[in-house]
């Protein structure tokens, strides 16, 4: 049977899930930025951000979640992130420095954005963030597709409902 989509989670849950997506990204970005002084880095930021997307899948179901731009382009994001990080690692080689050298070098003048020092490792971490986020979202999507190949997945609880009727 083709179950009407999204009739299983309450409107409250759905609204909260939608509202939470943006704050999750903001929190992820905060983790990325504060990694330069406290625990946190691109990797954990990517994981946190993808948790936000996972929430959309769980609450709204696959169709709604795949309308998000970030979800549709997950593989591209992952690839771009990997290339960005690798370039940051490799470019110093062409300038005659060891791999992964960061600019400006220690002790030199740095542009500040608030407390964040704008140095090339920020780009590297941003690349890691995109890589992890893109990979995790892609993997979540792959799982969701596998489930919906068997039956259109309409959010949690539908299996239960179908059994009752």
């Amino acid at each position: 049977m083709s179950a009407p989509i999204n009739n299983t989670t309450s409107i409250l849950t759905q609204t909260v899930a939608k509202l939470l997506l943006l704050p999750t990204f903001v929190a992820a970005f905060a983790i990325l930025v504060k990694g330069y002084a406290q625990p946190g880095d691109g990797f954990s930021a990517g994981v946190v951000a993808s948790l936000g997307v996972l929430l959309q899948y769980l609450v709204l179901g696959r169709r709604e979640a795949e309308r998000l731009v970030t979800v549709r382009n997950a593989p591209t994001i992952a690839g771009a992130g990997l290339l960005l990080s690798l370039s940051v690692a490799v470019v110093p080689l062409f300038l005659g420095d060891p791999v992964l050298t960061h600019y400006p070098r220690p002790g030199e003048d740095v542009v500040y954005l608030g407390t964040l020092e704008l140095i090339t490792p920020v780009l590297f971490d941003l690349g890691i963030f995109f890589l992890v986020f893109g990979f995790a979202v892609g993997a979540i999507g792959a799982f969701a597709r596998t489930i919906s190949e068997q039956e259109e997945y309409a959010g949690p609880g539908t299996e239960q409902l179908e059994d009752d009727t």
Partner: protein
Amino acid sequence: MTTLVILPAGIAWLLAAVIAPLDGRRPLWGWLAATGLGASLLAVVLLLVRVLREGPVEVVAGGWPEGVGITLRADVLGASFAAVSLAVVLVAFVHEVLLGVRSRTFPALVLFLAAGLSGLFLTGDIFNFYVFFEISMTASYILTGYREENSQVRAAFIFAVVNLVGSVMFLSGIAGLYHLTGSLDMEVVAGRIGQVELSSIIPIATVIFVAFSLKIGLFPFHFWLPAVYVGSHAPVAAILSGAVANIGSYGLLRFGADVLPDALSFGAPVVLVLGVVSIVYGAMQAVSRHDTSEVMAYSTIGQVGYILVALAVGGPVGYAAAVVYSIVNSLNKALVFLAAQLRGPLAGAAFAVGAFSIAGVPPAVGFVGKIALFKTSIEAGGLLETTALVVLIFAGSALSFVYAFQVYQRAFLAREYRNNKRPSPRATRVLAISLAAFVLAVGLWPEPLLVLGTESAALLLEGLR
């Protein structure tokens, strides 16, 4: 020219990231990937020559002072393993490109695998080793499922599950080492571990030993290996047994002989017994099997035993034999897995060279490996031990001769083979024959190979000081 240390992994990695979104089934991208692999291999060979002449090359990433930044270090041991592994990956990959790649991700995955392999052989940092190790393992999980037939997906599943368990064990071993020594740099750990009580090292060393034994398929940890090698597509099986398995033997040498020498000498009797059991078990099983890949899978379990025996005996002769035998074994296995599926003129000859090299028949390179092992067993000390080892290695070789001959007979002389003569593409046969010729050539002029062995052994023993 310290850039040379980064090039092998760097070229493969960047190219992998570029090729990943492209359709790898098109020959153009396949050949581009092959060129990249060739460039990586060239860089490793140049690095190897340099390292042989001038000693280890070190780079600290980011230009940080030593001990702060992550060290990339190339020495004879790592560079030899990197060169052999990349060569095997290149040959197997070109073989598959000639046959026609069937999945868009295949070239990118092989490049990721190559990047991981060259990275882990050329690093001086234990955690870095683990990261590259995971890159290559993850790529090989997916590669095992390549062609997506049921048996291959099943093989990939078994391979992934078992090796993930191994990875977790290795990671906890690393955590233990860090806890004991407060460092992840191999040299620093090796230096500080001497002051630690042996009783606290042994559990960690055991965990690391089991993790690597699982990777190479040593006897009690071999259970996954036949299913995976039989299931996977021939070039993938060649990569798994000729390149990925090197991680295990390199890991045992590096962590056993270089980083944890006291633990290795303490555990030598156990290592020796496991090696012996592995030789006997692998050879017996191989003789009793019918299918070519199955025989070769069990043969791999036996061959690993020889490396373990050499490692247990240790000393300059033992370590040299372990290195030489690992290299010889990867060449043999790559050749055998690639040639076994080929049909047509000279395909049988290429396979025969591989099979008899495994048995240690001169002039193939396997003979050099066996000689090194005989020397090792003479070094082993006591008359009883020496005699037992010589007899064992002789018996093992005799058994491998039996199964090599059986397999050759079944695969290339049987009536069904003669009746079913649809020759494989000529280019793939030429490739297999070139590899066979290389195996013969190294067997006829073993000097460079032996130098790699003795230099690596000298390096490992230097670490003891």
